[in-house]
């Protein structure tokens, strides 16, 4: 299945208008305020935002307009009026009327605005402050009483509101309604008492709430974690890439004296537009909050980890790996360059294809599907924009790739895009998309996929959890073949797509070269200047673990893997104890406890690199914290390889990037894919159910540590069962149920909702609901569900 970009040339009508005496030609539909921007003419504004529907509320952007000689009797809001042929616009620069109107509105905006700029977080980067300087008057004529409010009020644990600063532009409420579909904040009261607020019993717990802080044109909305922390002119900003998921957001990281103080959404119209999710914005303290590994350590003869010098630690790692039957486990958070380092290290330094980036529940079906259909594919956000139908399979966009959610939602709102979700439980996000929900029992997705009818304009978005249902990916492949629909695989973690392209998996070499293709191996071996490369398909994560436990593998190089992310966590922990383990990590983990050599590495803000988002496109970034001594994984792997006498020559991230680029994509045949059959029905007794789950955006994820304000906005932890099951076990919403199997149990408050009668849902990794750690299974396993 190849993805071909069908380029349709859209014919756009162009209109020429005159603004302040200059002609400008813009597409039909362009607003006057933006046509002026094209000429470099800045009309002051507050409520206007290019990604929100025009509202014309603040009246700051008034200009004089005439069309074909007919003048409007009064100045018009340039943010609401599209250009028209024959239009002549006079802004504040050439019209006294417009200039006075703007000065008048600015004066009125300041009537009730406090003079607290010196203590306001927005001071120094405030559109009101700036435009009051450029378009206002120095002295206020207001001698009366200003409006005051109790301040600040918490809209959520993370977002605070100082109402007296608010200019009521409604950007925040419009964003929440129009973009996020979370109208939890609204304008309340009216007239001079109008104010932004929540319903008193329901906080502003939207996954996208931080965007309202960013687009607030005054200091009314602030994030608790940045409030009173810094002045904007003391910050050093670095463009960066978000490490939290595969959406691929452009970000800006603001650092003061080596410490990240905030992160903002960058503007990439092809990806995140100007938005991001709250995790991307606020979950950055883990880098400093957690107990970082500072120095290399080697386990001594007493079995204890001991601080070692870098040369000693590298030597110890090489010694342990030398001659061992070694395998590589690399987590899904590695940068593209680091993943490539692990990939090359496995093949060249360890002589094995036993490498897998999938630190999660996986299947061979998935591995083969990735090699046959995903690597090198080029479906993009634009394909969502053009789709006639979006089919979601094993994928909760709002929880697992929030910007994909926003993009689908945009098209749903704009043109009623049809969305269908095949899943086990109707989610909040899918409900917001107005999607058709096709309810299945956990593990039985395949049949529902096969019954969908799509067109060549449709797009299937498959999540990583599809691997947890046998036959699901096979059904997707055949639906694509049959309908000609586009499809994309959207993993949850930021590094997975890059790791796939880098060949950090048993059946692929870098650039999509199939391991089993001799020509591909020769191509790569010559590029790498090695005689040969291992020929067999390497083991998967699960197989590597079993092989350690059975003695077939004796050593592990582990980078950024949390054993509790795997569905066989107990087995993994015992394998780690058994093997010689070299751990590359930023902080102590369950791996550290069993590791023989521990090598600290750089966190994402401390290094350069790139992430490939789910579309396969790269976002490169430089170190935001410039003075870190920590090294990227690839640099350390290169040192170990040197010590092993099997050099991989990847001394720097930039050298690695150059090598990846020079290799290019494999243009030979793809590996073939043989479908997996869907399972047959399972017999359940009345107190048994099939467990199903996904990770919520905000949960116990390692990268969210240290940000309690953010954690406070997480969704409530509940277990979900169907009304039929609820009746059967005698519970109602709010009661507690126990979900258990032979490994353990969790007890959670229950929510009776629309879910398959055979299923019980709980969040995969939320407080009290750590399914993989407690049950060792999070999808499709049989569990016992009883009233607790």
């Amino acid at each position, binding site marked *: 299945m190849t993805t071909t970009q069908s380029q349709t040339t859209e014919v756009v009508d162009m209109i020429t208008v005159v603004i302040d005496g200059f002609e400008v030609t813009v597409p039909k539909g362009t607003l006057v305020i933006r046509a002026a921007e094209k000429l470099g003419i800045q009309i002051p504004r507050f409520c206007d935002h290019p990604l929100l529907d025009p509202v014309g509320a603040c009246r700051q952007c008034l200009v004089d307009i005439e069309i074909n000689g007919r003048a409007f*009797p009064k*100045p018009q809001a340039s943010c609401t009026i599209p250009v028209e042929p024959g239009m002549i616009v006079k802004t504040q620069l050439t019209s006294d009327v417009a200039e006075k*109107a703007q000065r*008048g509105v600015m*004066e009125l905006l300041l*009537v009730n605005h406090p003079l607290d700029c010196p203590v306001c977080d927005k001071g120094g980067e405030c559109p009101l402050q700036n435009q009051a300087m450029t378009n206002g008057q120095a002295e206020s004529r207001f001698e009366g009483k200003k409006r005051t409010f109790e301040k600040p009020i918490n809209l959520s644990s993370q977002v605070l509101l100082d109402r007296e600063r608010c200019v*009521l532009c409604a950007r925040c409420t419009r964003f929440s309604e129009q973009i996020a579909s979370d109208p939890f904040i609204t*304008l309340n009261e*009216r007239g001079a008492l109008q104010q932004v607020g929540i319903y008193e019993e329901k906080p502003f717990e939207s996954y996208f709430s931080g965007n309202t802080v960013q687009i607030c044109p005054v200091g009314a909305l602030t994030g608790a974690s940045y409030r009173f922390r810094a002045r904007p002119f003391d910050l050093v900003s670095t463009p960066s890439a978000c490490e939290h998921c595969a959406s691929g957001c452009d970000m800006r990281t603001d650092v003061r004296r080596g410490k990240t103080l905030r992160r903002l959404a960058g503007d990439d119209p092809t990806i995140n537009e100007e938005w991001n999710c709250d995790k991307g914005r606020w979950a950055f303290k883990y880098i400093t909050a957690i107990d970082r590994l500072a120095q290399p350590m080697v386990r001594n003869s007493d079995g204890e980890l001991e601080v070692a010098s870098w040369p000693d630690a590298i030597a110890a790692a090489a010694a342990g790996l030398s001659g061992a039957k070694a395998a590589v486990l690399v987590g899904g958070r590695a940068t593209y360059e680091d993943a490539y380092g692990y990939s090359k290290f496995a093949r060249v330094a360890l002589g094995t294809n036993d490498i897998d980036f999938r630190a999660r529940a996986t299947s061979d079906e998935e591995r083969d599907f990735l090699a046959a259909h995903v690597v090198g594919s080029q479906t993009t956000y634009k394909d969502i924009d053009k789709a006639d139908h979006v089919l979601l399979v094993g994928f909760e966009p709002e929880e697992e790739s929030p910007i994909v959610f926003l993009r689908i939602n945009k098209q749903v709102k704009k043109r009623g895009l049809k969305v269908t979700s095949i899943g086990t439980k109707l989610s909040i996000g899918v409900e917001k998309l107005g999607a058709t929900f096709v309810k299945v029992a956990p593990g039985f997705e395949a049949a529902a996929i096969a019954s969908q009818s799509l067109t060549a304009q449709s797009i299937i978005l498959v999540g990583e959890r599809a691997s947890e249902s046998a036959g699901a990916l096979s059904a997707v492949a055949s639906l694509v073949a049959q309908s000609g629909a586009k499809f994309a695989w959207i993993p949850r973690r930021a590094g997975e797509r890059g790791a796939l392209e880098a060949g950090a998996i048993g059946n692929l070499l870098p650039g999509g070269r199939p391991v089993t293709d001799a020509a591909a191996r020769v191509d790569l071996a010559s590029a790498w200047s090695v005689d040969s490369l291992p020929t067999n398909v390497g083991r998967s994560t699960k197989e590597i673990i079993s092989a350690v436990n059975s003695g077939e593998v004796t050593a592990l190089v582990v980078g950024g893997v949390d054993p509790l992310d795997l569905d066989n966590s107990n087995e993994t922990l015992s394998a780690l104890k058994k093997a010689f383990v070299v751990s590359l990590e930023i902080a102590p983990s369950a791996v550290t406890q069993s590791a023989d050599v521990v090598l600290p590495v750089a966190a994402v803000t401390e290094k350069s690199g790139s992430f490939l988002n789910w579309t396969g496109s790269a976002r490169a970034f430089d170190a935001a914290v410039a003075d870190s001594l920590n090294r990227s994984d690839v640099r350390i792997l290169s040192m170990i390889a040197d010590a092993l006498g099997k050099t991989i020559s990847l001394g720097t991230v930039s050298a690695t990037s150059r090598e990846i680029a020079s290799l290019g994509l494999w243009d030979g045949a793809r590996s073939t894919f043989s479908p997996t059959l869907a399972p047959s029905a399972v017999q359940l007794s009345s107190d048994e159910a099939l467990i199903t789950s996904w990770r919520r955006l905000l949960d116990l994820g390692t990268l969210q540590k240290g940000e309690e304000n953010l954690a406070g906005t997480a969704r409530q932890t509940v277990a979900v069962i169907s009304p039929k099951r609820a009746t059967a076990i005698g519970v109602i919403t709010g009661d507690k149920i126990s979900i258990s199997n032979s490994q353990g149990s969790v007890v959670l408050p229950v929510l009776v909702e629309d879910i398959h009668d055979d299923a019980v849902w709980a969040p995969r990794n939320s407080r009290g609901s750590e399914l993989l750690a407690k049950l060792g299974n999070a999808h499709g396993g049989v569990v016992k569900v009883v009233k607790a």
Partner: protein
Amino acid sequence: MSKLTPVLSAHWDEKDSFTIDAYTRHGGYKASAKALAMDPDAVIQLVKDSGLRGRGGAGFPTGMKWGFIPQGDNKEHYLVVNADESEPGTCKDTPLMMANPHVLIEGCIIACHAIRAKHAFIYIRGEVTHVVRRLNQAIEDAYKAGHLGKGIDLVLHVGAGAYICGEETALLDSLEGFRGQPRLRPPFPAIAGLYARPTVVNNVESIASVPAIVANGAEWYQKYGTEKSKGMTLYSLSGHVNNPGQFEAPLGITLREILDLAGGVRTGHTLKFWTPGGSSTPLFTDAHLDIPLDYEGVAAAGSMLGTKALQIFDETTCVVRAVLRWTEFYKHESCGKCTPCREGTWWLVQILRDLENGSGSEEDLAKLLDLCDNIMGRSFCALGDGATSPITSSIKYFRDEYIAHVTGKGCPFDPVASTLFSSAGAR
């Protein structure tokens, strides 16, 4: 021959005037039967020919408004009657609906037929419970009698206290279940109104005028009124007059004529200032007694016919106090959406309070006028414009009185003197 021409009010003096029996007794629902037998376009043409103009204040030709509704577009069309009568001084639709709700219902039936709407709404303000009762009962009775429910449905929607909902797009947002704040135009309601469907929004009196026009013909209606302001209308006289009330007369009658009928200004007093059409229309004085009260005549004299709410104030009334109260009203009713109206009315009230209690200055007058200049035509809707009307017009005619408050450090008027019960004292 009387100058008055009761048509809408013709039978209000019958005790059961509000019942369907009384209405049919006087030929009610014959006009709708006649209209339903006509081609819808012919009904629109008839209303166009009659010259009927909107009675809610703006005076837009009603037939032309109906004609803007795109036909054959396979979309639902809606008729929405604006019964949110709240403009200070305006008190014509409320007694009309209380005394004869059926004429409005019949007008709705005819209008729906003309614009090919199957669904009509009457948006009535919520502070008039007994009128709500009467309308609700009348709608029920019209359904029972088969006038409604056979292709045309009518729903009474009750507001909840917001002057801004008299603005047609705010009314539509309110009717859709949102905060009643005005919408951007374009799109205009005729293209995308209620539920983004083509919608006609008409004032109660406009729609209630239609049955008589259909019954008697456009030519009959054309005989009344002036060249561009056809027909008869309800003038509401209130305030310092001997006999306040409703006067249905052809457009173009003068205040002097109405005052003559009403027994003049309160005995022993003289006219000081008045509003031709509610507080949002610039004030007039005794110099304007002979201005024809039609759309053109009032506009030519620098005000607006508005809702024909003739509020009369005699020489006992302090104009600063009167204007302050109106300004407080606009501040209270500003929806909050746009800066000039929201913040401007907040500020205007403070300056006017200072002026009224004698702590203002002469410079405040210049400031007031400049502020009004920054609000008028800069606000999102006409509410902000309306807020400036009493201020600018009162300063124009009564500047000295403002100055007197400054120099005398307080209000020179006795508020008791202007009360209705002044002769008996404020008990």
